[in-house]
């Protein structure tokens, strides 16, 4: 671990001529990643089309998984993280951990809101709150 950090620190700030030197010719890889991204986008879009038959929850889960896969493809290949990870991980691990934790620490608000939702449902049945969005009388 210490060695890795030292190596990362040594790599940082070097004005090497980088790029093609250790990445090689990446064009073929870029085209393949592009194809994968297009397929992923199509898969996401299908979940909201009439062709989708596996239910909303499955669709939503798939959509978010596909988004994560797309993000990984872009970061790893287009942003060269696959090759620079050993020089940048010390910065990314805490950043991504905190970025992921941020919505998670707010999850209790969603959970506690279930109480509010129960009240809402009772009120909705009583007709004291508006219904879901609806076009009324064109």
């Amino acid at each position, binding site marked *: 671990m210490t060695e890795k950090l030292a190596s990362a620190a040594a790599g*940082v*700030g*070097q*004005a*090497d*001529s*980088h*790029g*093609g030197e250790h990445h090689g010719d*990446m*064009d073929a890889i*870029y*085209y393949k990643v*592009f194809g994968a*991204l*297009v397929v992923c*986008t199509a898969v*996401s*879009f299908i*979940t*909201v089309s009439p062709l989708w038959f596996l239910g909303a929850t499955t*669709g*939503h889960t798939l*959509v*978010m998984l*596909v*988004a994560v896969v797309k*993000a990984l493809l*872009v*970061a790893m290949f*287009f*942003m060269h993280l696959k090759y620079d990870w050993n020089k*940048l991980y010390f910065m990314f691990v805490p*950043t991504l951990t905190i*970025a*992921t934790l*941020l*919505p998670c620490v*707010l*999850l209790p*608000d*969603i959970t506690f*809101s279930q109480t*509010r*939702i129960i009240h*809402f*449902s009772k009120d*909705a049945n*009583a*007709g004291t*709150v*508006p*219904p*879901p*969005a*609806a*076009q*009324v*009388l*064109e």
Partner: protein
Amino acid sequence: MPTAKLAMWLFLGTEIMFFAGLLGAYIVLRFGQAPGVWPTPHDVHLVEWMGAVNTFVLICSSVTVVLAHSALLKGNIGRATMMILITLLLGCVFLGIKAVEYKAKIDHHLLPGQVRETVNDTYLDEMNRRVIPALTAVPSRSAEQNKVLADAEAFVKVLGSGEMTKVAERINRAKALHGEAEKAFGAAALEEVHWPMVIPLGNLWSSLYFALTGIHALHVLGGLVMFGLLLVMSMMSRLTPKHDVLVENVGLYWHFVDLVWIFLFPLLYLLG
């Protein structure tokens, strides 16, 4: 690793935290609502295929920017310039589509603070502004027309007093009244009457939508300025393979903009 590239990654680290805060706020506010209450994409005139096309456009632009960097490393300045130009144009296409989407929101008054969220205010407003004036404008009214007018005025009083508490009752009464008025006064008399869209939580949705997409669009605009500067450098014959780190850094920023959209697209368009 060049210092400039490390600096760009540090900047992107701050950007990640910035957008994590925004997306976190959206997730909590969106998924903390009762099921079925949050506006659907259809309710708020969000067109899924437009979002998908914009996703495709940004993906294409990400490819062209890495190809520009690759060409620069190979010393092919002409191809690099062409790829930067294509990236710039694709960014403009993205903003163009976004502008079309914004126009639809503006045309339908889906702006923060302007969305009607409750039936009472909406219907009372429409009754006072359109229905009653349209009915009273008829000079000599028949008995049937007078009855409809009296019913309409009674409905206004009920809406104003809040006695009619059930939403469905108010909607049905408005529908029935509209039908009776059309029958007694003719459809032409009520052609100006438009019962507006009622979108519960519409203002919250609108605020989040414009905050998220607006800040993202500003980032796109920032990227376009950088691509424009690279093109100017190229036109002045000052873009050389030595600038590979500069082009790569602009590319890193652009890919980050693409990454943010990769999450915005499903959250806003597909999980409605």
